């Protein structure tokens, strides 16, 4: 059987690797330098970049600052919240992914001074740098929904896939109960920038799927409250999702932004152009407003005129280099670019930062640029997904044009999400994909 296993795995990996964005060769020519490089954040972008820079630079002093001992595979959260994987599926150790040559400071960053070129950690240690890469991820602001608290997740019909693997698992217990009993399922998304804008849609589809499988769809109402006039930022994808929502019988409400939740009454309040509206629920997946972490928001690094109050780093959207501090870069969720708060985007951004940074160290011009590539295996039910890939221009950029249709619900797209994506993600963390 080994032969078939290899063949299957080969195929799945080929598909999976491309779903996250096919890679360029991980290591080009090594560059000798004594530069001090600080990376804030050891998540998907930070760990991957640390590995790539360690392999690429000879003699550089690379420091990574992150207090979290757990590394979380966030693309797995939806699968956990759908009862398909246990919470442990998304959990590993930060230390598992960092190269030995990199100095890991197990503290949070407390202050950034890009003029003095220093980062101060939580304990007050000052770390100076020649080059800084901000890969700090983003912050979930549950407190911006009145009455909401992370402690409520898993009780009284309140779920929230994003908070943690444990919260995703608690959300599954509530969703499982809800799809047994029926009632009103309420789904929404915040008006801020958010990570993986497809996730709220996926989870609505999955809840519908479970209700159908259990024969309880008849006593289940599904309401989706969209924050704007559309369901998804890419128009062609929005139209497809709108059609599917219609087919599945979802009640879609537009321009509804959740502002408060009352767990006792099981009612959520939404801000709408016509004033506040209350919607009762028996189950809801709360997605909080998101922003850059405080240390970034309170630094001189964010945009002044874009994403105001959200604090994303002001970088050139193609080179990912800071517009005002040329020795600062950003990658991953914290980067202030119009698209791409997904692991797939991080996978495409990291080699660009590597190329631009290494070229800068060598006194040359970088050649790689980021085109806004984002990928979202949009699950439409257990067993099917649409492999949606797009760029800054809202163009679809399918990895397999003419073979895997991006707007078709396919089993192969599901296959990738299930078995090949995490492997590709792990390979990315090691700087090998």
């Amino acid at each position, binding site marked *: 059987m080994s032969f*078939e296993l290899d063949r299957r795995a080969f195929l799945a990996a080929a598909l999976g690797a491309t779903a996250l964005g096919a890679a360029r060769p991980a290591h080009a020519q090594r560059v000798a330098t004594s530069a001090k490089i600080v990376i804030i954040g050891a998540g998907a972008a930070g760990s991957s970049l640390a590995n790539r820079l360690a392999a690429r630079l000879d003699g550089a002093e690379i420091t990574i600052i992150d207090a979290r001992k757990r590394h979380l595979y966030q693309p797995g959260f939806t699968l956990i919240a759908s009862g398909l994987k246990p919470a442990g599926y998304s959990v590993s150790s930060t230390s598992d992914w960092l190269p030995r040559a990199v100095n890991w400071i197990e503290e949070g960053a407390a202050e950034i001074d890009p003029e003095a070129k220093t980062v101060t950690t939580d304990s007050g240690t000052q770390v100076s740098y020649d080059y800084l890469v901000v890969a700090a991820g983003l912050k979930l602001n549950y407190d911006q929904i009145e009455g909401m608290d992370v402690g409520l997740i898993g009780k009284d019909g309140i779920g929230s896939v994003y908070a943690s693997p444990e919260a995703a698992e608690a959300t599954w217990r509530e969703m499982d109960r809800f799809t047994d009993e029926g009632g009103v399922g309420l789904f929404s998304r915040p008006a801020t920038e958010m990570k993986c804008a497809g996730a709220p849609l996926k989870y609505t589809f999955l809840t519908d799927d479970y209700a159908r499988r259990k024969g309880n769809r008849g006593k289940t109402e599904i309401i989706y409250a969209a924050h704007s006039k559309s369901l998804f930022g890419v128009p062609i994808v929005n139209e497809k999702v709108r059609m599917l929502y219609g087919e599945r019988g979802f009640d879609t409400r537009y321009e509804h932004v959740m502002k408060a939740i009352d767990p006792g009454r099981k009612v959520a309040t939404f801000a709408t152009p016509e004033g506040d509206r209350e919607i009762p629920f028996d189950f809801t997946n709360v997605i909080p407003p998101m922003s850059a972490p405080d240390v970034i928001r309170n630094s001189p690094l964010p945009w002044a005129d874009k994403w105001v109050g959200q604090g994303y780093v002001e970088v050139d959207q193609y080179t990912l280099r800071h517009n005002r501090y040329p020795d600062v870069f950003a990658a991953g969720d914290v980067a202030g670019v119009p698209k791409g708060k997904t692991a797939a985007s991080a996978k495409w951004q990291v080699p660009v930062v590597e190329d631009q940074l290494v070229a800068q160290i060598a006194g040359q011009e970088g050649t790689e640029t980021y085109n806004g590539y984002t990928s979202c295996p949009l699950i439409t039910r257990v067993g099917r997904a649409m492999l949606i890939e797009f760029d800054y221009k809202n163009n679809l950029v399918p990895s397999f044009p003419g073979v895997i249709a991006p707007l078709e619900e396919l089993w192969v797209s599901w296959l990738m999400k299930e078995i090949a994506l995490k492997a590709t993600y792990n390979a990315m963390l090691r700087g090998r*994909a």
Partner: protein
Amino acid sequence: MEELTFGTLIAVLEEMFGRGLFWGLVVIAALVTAAFVYVIVRDRSLRSRWFLRAELLAPIGAIAAIWFVFVITRSGLGDVGGPIDVIALIMIGLAGAVGLTFLAYTVQAVVGGKRGEA
């Protein structure tokens, strides 16, 4: 879309199975292939009786391969949504069929030893 390199593919496969299991499977596959080549060279032909028996196992290999993929991905025939899904299933089935046929032939040939003309 950029090129998917061989190195990336190996890295992904190592992550998927674990490094030990992946290379173990590669070694097993290589050994079966080597054993198959060996018996063909040894016998200077395909023995029709062994080959026929091995071929009878092909549908089982195909079904087992497809069933295995469905089980590990919690999906089923009802999830087939487009032509590429059918093509992928055929490829998985073919891989299973061909794999089991090769394996069965090789096992018979190795166990059966060198005999006269069939």
